[in-house]
């Protein structure tokens, strides 16, 4: 019988690296996808998802076994993603002043959602997947996290609220605004 995430976490607290590797194998794809959809960048997604696993390793003894591991882990990961974006905001603003051709052209625009058509809307005119990703990139980090947790992890509004550290109704508003914005962006193409 496979040990539960919570059991693995208890073993990780005792510095069991095999338990840690098992936990990583179990969650690596979901963690990477979530980070990738919030950050919109492969290398950042790799670094931040690895950082989230590292935090789990370091703080496993602080995990409250009464709650679900996945909620705790998602919270760590989403907070790291949002912090990373906030730290990089000034830098991205500077790069956007340099010009779109000279900046990292796979980096999406970040908060706040842009209403004006620009290079991001150009990307929407591509394939269906690319259009969706470009539309996703126009959302705020919290909206992106909420919608990704809903779609990819199949979390309820209550669980999304626990991850985003907000009320359930706020989580529903994030979801509603995210979907409204996505539909609006996709219609505008």
């Amino acid at each position, binding site marked *: 019988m496979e040990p539960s995430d919570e059991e693995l976490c208890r073993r990780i607290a005792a*510095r069991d690296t095999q338990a840690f590797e098992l936990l990583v194998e179990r969650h690596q794809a979901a963690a*990477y996808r979530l980070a*990738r*959809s919030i950050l919109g960048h492969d290398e950042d997604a*790799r670094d931040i998802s690895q950082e989230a696993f590292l935090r789990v390793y370091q703080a496993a003894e602080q995990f409250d076994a009464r709650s679900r591991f996945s909620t705790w882990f998602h919270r760590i990961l989403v907070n790291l993603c949002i912090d990373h974006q906030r730290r990089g905001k000034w830098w991205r603003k500077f790069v956007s002043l340099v010009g779109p051709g000279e900046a990292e052209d796979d980096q999406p625009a970040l908060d706040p959602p842009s209403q004006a058509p620009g290079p991001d809307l150009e990307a929407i005119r591509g394939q269906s997947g690319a259009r*969706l990703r470009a539309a996703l990139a126009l959302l705020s980090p919290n909206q992106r996290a909420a919608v990704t947790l809903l*779609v990819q992890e199949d979390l*309820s*509004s209550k669980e999304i609220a626990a991850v985003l550290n907000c009320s359930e109704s706020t989580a529903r*508003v994030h979801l509603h605004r995210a979907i409204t914005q996505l539909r609006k962006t996709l219609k505008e193409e």
Partner: protein
Amino acid sequence: MLGRSHPEAELIAYSRGELRPAARDRVARHLHGCARCRASVAACARLLSELGRELERTPLPDWQIYRAQLMQKVAQVPPPAPPRRWRPALAWSSLGAAALATATLLLTLNLPRLRPPAPPPMDQLSLQEAMADTDVDLLRAYPVLEHLDLIENYDVISRLDELSPAPTSANPNRS
């Protein structure tokens, strides 16, 4: 539908069965009479389904390399510090050991002051003077002593005090 507020923020929760009974019934009643919200629910479901498929197509990294990098980072994590707990017995014994160590250190540092001062280095002349001071009686009986064979006259030597010094002129060996 004019004048009615649309429960837009609740539509996703409704379609996923997350609403409490009272809210669920209210939204259901609204949807029954509102084509716009019914269309919105259907559009949301299509969009979320499409988004789910797209996220599934995210190109993934080589997991072996990913885990190797991660384990390298883990190897650099310092071991956790042992938890500090207040244990009175341990604290008192530590305090006692510290006091003992301090006392030993102070004693060691002050030891040279407690010892008698070492005699100053002596040269040959000083040594002779010192010997002369300590064996005055022997020197007083020197005239007797010089006529004795030291090896054969221990008794005489030990009773020098009882002897009277011989006159210098009576010495037959003196030239």
